[in-house]
C-alpha cells in the first residue's frame, strides 16, 4: 500500500453511481488505482461487483460519475484506453468451434499483437498437447485457461478480471497469483473479483474495495 500510493495513478473513479432496475447498487464511489496495485472488489452477491468492473472497463456506462484514464474520461479516449486494458469477464470469449490455438491466436491478433508463439503460451497455462482440440471439447477449467493464456502475452497495464479463478485448480490459482504479482511489480495493476481465498497474494499487498448490498 505505502509503496503504491506514491506511484502513478492509472485509473481513477470519480463519484460513480450505478442503478439497475431502479435499485441503487452504489453511489458516490470514488477511488484511485495506481501502478503496482492489486485490487480486489469484494461484497455479497448482487452488490454490484461485476457492474463495477464493467463500468471501469468501459463496457457499461455509469448512471452518474466517470472513470478517468490518464486524466481523461474513458469514453472519450477509448482507443488509448483499450490499448492498455485487458478485460476478462464471466464469459471467457472463447469460441467453442475453434481450437485452443486458433482462439488464442485470434484473441491476441485482435488485441494488436503480431509476433507470438501460441504453443509456448498454451504450454504456460498447462494446455500443452491441447492446441488442436476444439474449445468446445475442453473441460471448464481448460476452457478458462485458454482465455487466461492471453495474460501470458500482454503489455496492457490494466488487467480487469471478473472471477479469474473459477474452475481453475489450486496450482493454477497459485501460478496466476504469481503472475499478478509480477505484473503489479512491473508497473501494472490488477483489478479482480473472487470468492476464493488467495494464498500467495497476502492482505498486505492486496487492496480491497468493499461494496455492500443496499436495499434502497
Amino acid at each position, binding site marked *: 500500500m505505502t509503496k503504491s500510493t506514491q506511484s502513478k495513478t492509472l485509473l481513477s473513479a470519480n463519484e460513480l453511481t450505478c*442503478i439497475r432496475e431502479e435499485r441503487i447498487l452504489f453511489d458516490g464511489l470514488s477511488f484511485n488505482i495506481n501502478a503496482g496495485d492489486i485490487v480486489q472488489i469484494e461484497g455479497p452477491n448482487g452488490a454490484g461487483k461485476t457492474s463495477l468492473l464493467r463500468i471501469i472497463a468501459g463496457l457499461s456506462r455509469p448512471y452518474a460519475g466517470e472513470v478517468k484514464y490518464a486524466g481523461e474520461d474513458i469514453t472519450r479516449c477509448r482507443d488509448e484506453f483499450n490499448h492498455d486494458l485487458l478485460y476478462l469477464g464471466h464469459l471467457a470469449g472463447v469460441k467453442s468451434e475453434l481450437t485452443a490455438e486458433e482462439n488464442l491466436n485470434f484473441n491476441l491478433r485482435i488485441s494488436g499483437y503480431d509476433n507470438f508463439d501460441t504453443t509456448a503460451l498454451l504450454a504456460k497455462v498447462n494446455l500443452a498437447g491441447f492446441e488442436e482440440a476444439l474449445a468446445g471439447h475442453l473441460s471448464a477449467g481448460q476452457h478458462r485457461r485458454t482465455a487466461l493464456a492471453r495474460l501470458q502475452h500482454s503489455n496492457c497495464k490494466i488487467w480487469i478480471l471478473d472471477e479469474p479463478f473459477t474452475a481453475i485448480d489450486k496450482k493454477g490459482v497459485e501460478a496466476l497469483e504469481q503472475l499478478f504479482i509480477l505484473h503489479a511489480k512491473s508497473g501494472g495493476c490488477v483489478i479482480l473479483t473472487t470468492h476464493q481465498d488467495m494464498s500467495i497474494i497476502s492482505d498486505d499487498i492486496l487492496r480491497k474495495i468493499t461494496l455492500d448490498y443496499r436495499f434502497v
Partner: protein
Amino acid sequence: MWKWLNSYADPERSYKLAGTLLPWFVCLAIALIGVGTTWGLLFAPMDYQQGDSFRIIYIHVPAASMSMAAYMGMATASFIGIVWQIKAADWAAASIAPIGAVITFIALFTGAAWGKPMWGTWWVWDARLTSELVLLFLYLGVIALYASFEDKVLAARAAGILAIVGVVNIPIIKYSVDWWSSLHQPATIKITEKSTMTGDMLYPLIINIFGFGMMIGAITLVRFRAEVLARNGMRPWVRALATQEVSK
C-alpha cells in the same frame, strides 16, 4: 447551449417546469382546436369537387403533418439524450413516442375514411397513406424496443438509436414511396389540392395544425411528468410525492 439544457436536466426542476408549462399548452390546445374545428365544420365553404367530405381535412392534414413533426421531435430529443447524455431528453423522447403513434394512426384512419367516398375504396396505395403506414411501423418499432428493455436507461438509448436511424431513412423512404406511387398509378385525385383552397378553407386548417401541435405538447408534458417520476423512484422527493398520493 448545453449548460442551459443541463440546468433543466435536474429531474425535479424539469418535473416542475413541465407542470408550469402544462396549463398553457392545455388552454392553447383547447382554444385552437375548438376554433379550428368549429370553423372548419360549420363555416368553411364546401369544396366544389369533394363536397362536404373534404371537411375531414381539418383532422387528417394536422394529424399527418404532426405525425412527422412528432417523429422529428422524438428523434431530436433522443439525439440530445445520446450525445449530451441528458436524461430528461430521453424521458421526453419516451413520452412522445406513443402520442406520435396515435396521431399517425389517426392520420391513416381519416385518410382511409376520406378515401372511401373519393376513390370508392377504403385503401389505396397512395403515396401519403403508404408513407404514413411506414411511419406507423417506425413508431411501433421504437415503442416495442423501448418496452422490451428492463433497464429503462438502456431502453432509451436503444430506442434513441433506432429513432435516429429512422430519421435518416424517412426522407429516403418518403422519396421512394412517392416515386413508386407515381410509377404505378398516374394522376388519381390528390386528396389535398393546395391550389383550390380558398382562404376561408385554409385558415381553420392552419389553426388546427397549430392546435394539434399544442395538444401533442400538452400530452407530452403529462406523460413526461409521469416518466420523470417513474425513472426517479429512488429519489426522496419522488418518494415524498408517492407517500402523499397514497395517503390521499
